[in-house]
């Protein structure tokens, strides 16, 4: 076996040093009655070439966006990943290292985390950031838990227009902690219904809003944060599933949000059939000590040179155990590195231009659809995704696939009242002619 260096001779020598007759002797502390008789019921090992072939076959049985134009977003946006990102991720100094608990030999990872934290705090207009969470959905749930600790509150308020999976995971997380989740409806523009929010806000410890929301509609965060309430304002948390929008919109911090969570997968990671993604959390400074997950901080070494360490670790499970701010241990380290490299490559100009291209493509697609009689579902402003009304939306994708197109996302599964709702996304990878083609097909169907 090519990953196992021990030769027969090595085994013999090591057994000698241990004072054991056989390898089986080493397992004598396991009672015979629980030992497995016979081999594991899985096939024998394969040679590398055979494994490769199997995976090539598996890959061939999937259709991917690079072959077919793809109009699916809904929490996973198809952006180009520069080759330089994977070149860095493929460096084994990064991917075969552990969590940087020994900072003197992990400064590479730690400095990258510090850079990531700086960029994410900057993009979201917040003071502090952690080093990543699992994904946007679990980050949303962590935000709710954090707010309930800070405010000793039991009521979680969430916009119904927030990503359905984010809401689903949130419910799983809070289910047994005595917390209640209430939803705030959306208006005809697809945005949070502010008067409904004002009514529901009393006693809530947090209000979680998607930005842009699941319908692609851009919320007016400032208007939400300015709603006059009779009671203490809930912590306002903005959840961002498409972080590229942060380059186009005023950052949530200055708009009055206290907390920003979401999924930064758009920054340099593939859609990858759903994972691994990149949950993140940034916050105003006052919330720092209740944040979940690892955090990197700047310090100096014994010679006074700048260096980085994991810090504020008393929040974490390995110290505070059941009183920790979260049970998270492993995070999405390498995905964080991808985002850091990606953002460094794009830079402020590149990311802005990329966001502009996404915006322009989506608006072109929207216009082309309207010209073909396909109407938008909501009136609010949109970034690179928007909902339209398409009759028989459940069956549209099959039709489109026959014409070589990966279609959008039918909304009825998550919003039964939006029977004809159909979510479409355009990114820098969407070609004009494909927009025209889609518009004419859907126009015919509508």
């Amino acid at each position, binding site marked *: 076996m090519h990953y196992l260096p021990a030769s027969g001779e090595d085994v013999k020598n090591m057994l000698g040093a241990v004072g054991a007759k056989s390898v089986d002797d080493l397992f004598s502390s396991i009672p015979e009655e629980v030992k497995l008789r016979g081999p594991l019921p899985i096939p024998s090992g394969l040679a590398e070439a055979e494994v490769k072939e199997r995976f090539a076959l598996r890959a061939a049985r999937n259709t991917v966006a690079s072959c077919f134009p793809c109009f699916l977003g809904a929490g996973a946006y198809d952006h180009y990943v520069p080759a330089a990102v994977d070149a860095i991720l493929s460096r084994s100094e990064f991917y075969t290292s552990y969590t940087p608990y020994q900072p003197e030999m992990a400064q590479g990872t730690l400095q990258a985390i510090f850079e990531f934290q700086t960029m994410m705090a900057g993009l979201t207009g917040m003071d502090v950031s952690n080093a990543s969470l699992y994904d946007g959905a679990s980050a949303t749930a962590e935000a709710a838990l954090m707010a309930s600790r800070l405010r000793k509150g039991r009521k979680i308020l969430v916009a119904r227009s927030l990503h359905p999976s984010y809401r689903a995971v949130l419910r799983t997380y809070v289910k047994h902690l005595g917390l209640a989740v209430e939803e705030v409806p959306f208006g005809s523009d697809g945005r949070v219904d502010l008067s409904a929010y004002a009514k529901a806000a009393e006693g809530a410890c947090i209000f979680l809003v998607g930005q842009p929301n699941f319908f692609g509609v851009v919320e007016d965060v400032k208007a939400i944060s300015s709603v006059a309430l009779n009671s203490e304002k809930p912590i306002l948390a903005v959840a961002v599933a498409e972080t590229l929008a942060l380059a186009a919109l005023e950052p949530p911090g200055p708009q009055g949000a206290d907390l920003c969570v979401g999924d930064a997968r758009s920054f340099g990671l593939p859609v990858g059939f759903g994972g691994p993604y990149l949950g993140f959390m940034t916050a105003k400074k006052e919330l720092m*000590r209740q944040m979940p997950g690892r955090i990197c901080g700047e310090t100096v070494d014994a010679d006074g040179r700048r260096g980085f360490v994991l810090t504020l*670790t*008393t929040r974490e499970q390995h*110290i*505070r155990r059941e*009183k920790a701010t979260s049970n998270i241990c492993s995070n999405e380290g390498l995905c964080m590195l991808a985002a850091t490299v990606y953002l460094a490559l794009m830079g402020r100009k590149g990311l802005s231009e990329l966001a502009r291209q996404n915006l322009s493509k989506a608006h072109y697609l929207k216009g082309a659809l309207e010209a073909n009689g396909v109407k938008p579902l909501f009136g609010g402003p949109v970034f690179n995704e928007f909902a339209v009304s398409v009759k028989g939306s459940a069956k549209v994708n099959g039709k489109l696939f026959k014409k070589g197109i990966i279609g959008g996302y039918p909304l009825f599964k998550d919003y039964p009242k939006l029977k004809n709702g159909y979510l479409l996304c355009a990114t820098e990878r969407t070609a004009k002619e494909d927009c025209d083609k889609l518009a004419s097909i859907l126009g015919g169907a509508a």
Partner: protein
Amino acid sequence: MNIPSGLRYTKTHEWVKIEGQTGTVGVSDFAQHELGDIVFVEAPQPGDGVTAGAQMGTVESVKAVSELNCPISGTVAETNEALADHPEYLNQDPYGAGWIVKVTLSDAKEAEGLMDAQAYAKYVAESGH
């Protein structure tokens, strides 16, 4: 180890200094030594009620969190704001600049049940340290 007389001590290594209706609370020199470099203090705020023997906050070093118990009952009158930027005062001057809260006592006699300096010195010695 410094154990000033005139203060009262708890088994969990907090001290209280009674002056009229006010009790000033901190952690002992022994405690700060055991905790190591203190990096953060979480204390109750003015107006909060505190109960003798109950947890009122935490003291953190880099890799440990210790509960901070209140030696006496009453209402917090003042919190040492300087500790937010200078938690090291707890290490440097546990009985002076490192005080944590001042409490308006609900029962000035309550502290008499706590150890005096002599008893506390004996307690520390006997608990095997």
